[in-house]
């Protein structure tokens, strides 16, 4: 964002989400909203993440639990189909993994530097009853 002078900054540090007014924005998909530079949608705000969730499409049942619980709206889902993780906004809190009900889980935490393909190849087997 351009570093403007005091005369151009917003009064009260009140930052616009959109560059123009939007009616019923809840019904407009994020990629279709006119986000302003002052909204973090266009920024990466995830640099302090040390563990990241990795998503396994093969196991997921699209229950949307992770989407509901994610505190940073970083679960990307369309038409109730889970698509993946928004790594520009996910802080790595692990809530999505905790609430995932499948066996094995469809989301697991891996080190930030791990390769996602590698992570998927190490996915645990289904646990048996009593295991």
């Amino acid at each position, binding site marked *: 964002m351009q570093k403007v002078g005091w005369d151009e900054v917003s009064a009260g540090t009140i930052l616009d989400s959109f560059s123009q007014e939007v*009616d019923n924005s809840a019904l407009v998909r994020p990629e279709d909203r006119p986000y302003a530079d002052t909204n973090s949608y266009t920024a990466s705000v995830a640099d302090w993440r040390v563990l990241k969730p990795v998503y396994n499409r093969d196991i997921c049942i699209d229950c949307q639990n992770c989407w509901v619980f994610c505190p940073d709206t970083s679960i990307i889902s369309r038409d109730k189909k889970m698509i993946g993780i928004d790594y520009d906004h996910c802080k790595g809190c692990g809530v999505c993994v905790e609430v995932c009900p499948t066996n094995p889980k469809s989301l697991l935490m891996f080190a930030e530097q791990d390769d996602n393909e590698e992570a998927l190849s190490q996915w645990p087997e289904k646990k048996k009853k009593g295991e």
Partner: protein
Amino acid sequence: MAEKMELKEVEVWDGNMAYAQAMRQAQIDVVAAYPITPSTPTVQNYSKFLADGYVDGEFVMVESEHGAMSGCIGAAAAGGRVATATSSQGYALMMETLYQASGMRLPIVLGVVNRAIAAPLNVNGDHSDMYMGRDSGWIHVATYNPQEAYDMILCAFKIGEHMDVRLPVQVHQDGFISSHTAQNVRPLQDEDAYDFVGEYQEKNAMLDFTKPVTYGAQTEEDWHFEHKAKQQKALMDSRPVIDEVFEEFEKRTGRKYNRVETYMMDDADIAIVALGTTVESARAAAQIMREEKGIKVGVVSPRVFRPFPYEKMQEALANVKAVATMDRSAPGGTVGMLFNELSGALINTDKRPVLTNYIYGLGGRDMTIENLKTIIEETNANAEAGKLTVPTQQFSGLRGPKLSFF
């Protein structure tokens, strides 16, 4: 729809009732409050108005004064007209949130009833709370009696909510001396008062979903300075708006307010500078000393002490030889606030009057006419000598050996 209250031409109100009535007439959307002595009757009266159907807005009982101002901040950001009242320890607990309110440019009105700050615990009036918050970025207005307390609350909404200002405003009155002393007050009728204050104009309302906004963003060294500079500019730019509002108020009521109030200053050789109810006592003492001793003394008071009326104080004191600054707050290891601010304003003027500082009235101790007469005599001696004849800082009305510094 709120009931209209029929008011007499002259009502007998104490300062708290004056605050509460002005708040009622402004048709506030949200009052979030945690009552504290001596401002308790302000919100108590207000809640009674609400229970009796004279108020349409919300009254939110919160868990502390920190919560009270936080509630006000939330409601103001949401897009409503908002006010509350507090004193002393409550004011101190609000401190963090006072900076939030001004930093977010929320035009909240806070009726302060001034009271000492513990320890030792004390419920009476001094200006410790007022002084504590004076740099919190709010507009601060001082009053001397219930009439002014009423008038200034009405003006506070109009000033703070002005589209060129959008800053929170505190109105101050002295605990008990003004807040609990019933006096004649000439109110406006409800419709006149509301017509003066005007309909609330939203700006960056969080409940406007077509234009979502973020309040309370974090800014570090790359942005913070610019934002604080812009806030200072807004506070300084509120001065002509305040003048305008005072002019409009005069047209409606005949009561004239100024950012600096002067009394018998036309021919004055010396001046007393004070805040609050002491201004009225000082005026009485000045009159007496003019009659009894022929001392040409006047009284100057910053009605609006934030933004500080720097030039207007220079102007008011341009021709005096000595000034006594009177601070009703424990100075905490330095000279009093008025001494400091006046020194700053007068150091670059041609005549540079001799300045002294009197600490007085702490914890509600009376400032008597006798004390004021002594102060006037000492100030007159300074004027005649053209230099200090007494210590810079003295304590007036204090028991025990004479205490002075510098």
